[in-house]
């Protein structure tokens, strides 16, 4: 049984109410969803809460998943929507989301050991901080497109499906995000 068959079997059992099967799906995809949500909202506790929300929402709506798209695409879509939905919420405002991002990220994510790529530029903690600032400078809709492309490695077709936009618009959004990131790095003195 390959991964797709195993996923289909877990989905079938989860639809029938087997919460353990759904729990297995959560285990399989939690890193994927949390990784995206964290970099979307840039706050560890909020990211954990929203990732939970995304999975709970997915479970409630399993009957709506027809299987004509990949399950991961469907999950990404729910996760992105959960992130967008929380932006104006009282919970987000109470957390001071937009003002404490750099501090929360610097303290809790991307352990130094994981950041040390075998490349002299990336060995620098300053470079990691610069990259983080560049991504954080993106407006949410551009950040989502940029992360789906460059962090998650998705095709423009998949990004378009997740963001509910045309494939051409997905491409334009990623291109524009690249330009914005480079501008943000340039404004911080990076020669690019």
């Amino acid at each position, binding site marked *: 049984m390959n991964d797709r068959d195993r996923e289909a079997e877990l989905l079938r059992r989860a639809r029938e*109410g087997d919460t353990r099967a759904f729990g297995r799906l959560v285990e399989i995809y939690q*890193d994927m969803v949390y990784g995206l949500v964290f970099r979307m909202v840039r706050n560890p506790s909020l990211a954990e809460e929203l990732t939970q929300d995304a999975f709970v929402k997915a479970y409630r709506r399993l009957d709506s998943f027809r299987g004509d798209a990949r399950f991961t695409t469907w999950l990404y879509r729910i996760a992105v929507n959960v992130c967008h939905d929380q932006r104006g919420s009282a919970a987000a405002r109470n957390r001071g989301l937009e003002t404490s991002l750099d501090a929360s990220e610097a303290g809790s994510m991307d352990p130094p050991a994981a950041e040390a790529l075998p490349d002299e530029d*990336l060995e620098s903690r300053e470079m*990691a901080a610069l*990259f983080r600032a560049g991504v954080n400078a993106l407006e949410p809709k551009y950040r989502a497109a940029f992360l789906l492309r*460059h962090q998650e490695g998705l095709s423009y077709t998949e990004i378009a499906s997740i963001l509910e936009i045309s494939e051409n618009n997905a491409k334009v959004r990623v291109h524009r995000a690249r330009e914005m990131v480079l501008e943000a790095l340039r404004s911080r003195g990076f020669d690019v």
Partner: protein
Amino acid sequence: MNDERKPRGLDPRLHDFFDGELSPSDAAAFEGDLRPGNDTANQLRTLKHLGAWLRTTRPRTPSSLARSVMSRLEAESPAGARRSSPALRRRWEPGSILRWAWVPAMAALLVLAVIPMTRALRPSDGTPKPSGDAARSGIPVAAADRNGSDTVPYRFTVKAAAAGRVCLAGDFNDWKVCEAPMRRVGEDTWSITINIPRGRHEYMFVIDNKWVSDPHAMGYADDGFGSRNSVLVV
């Protein structure tokens, strides 16, 4: 519209090169134009490093996350759980007075939902067949007879004159596309009668491999992908 703004300051070939969308000859020409230290070379290098950094420094997922999700699901009341899965409902039922207490209430709701519909559609002689209007307009028609089990025979109809193949897919058959092929029953109408569990269901017609909502469904539910599944309650 912001999305239509042209990216500024980048060699337009950089995006296509980065995305692997340049032809081999164009890619070679682009690489030939790169010089150490020039803007495009720096931008390309920076974007490559940024992408590598994003992929290799993913945040650590909290170890309690999966457990927290499952705790939330287990703690939810039946009303908050997926209501369209009879199997799930059965899972929530045993072992609790509260869990048993909602069963008759739900049963009463289902009866209230089904009786008016079946009465309206039942011909005067009581024979369980669809009304002509309903069949012509593609409204799913509930059979009046019940077989005494947890399932109800249900007739689905849809108009698709030019179609070569029409199937029914729904949560009741795990959305298997052609497990339930429909039969042409008139010049432009397709039909199928299947036994489905009592309760709320989501379904779609698959007309020549294209997913289509029932235009006469009892209701609709967002499918999470920008279109709507059809909803029925039996």
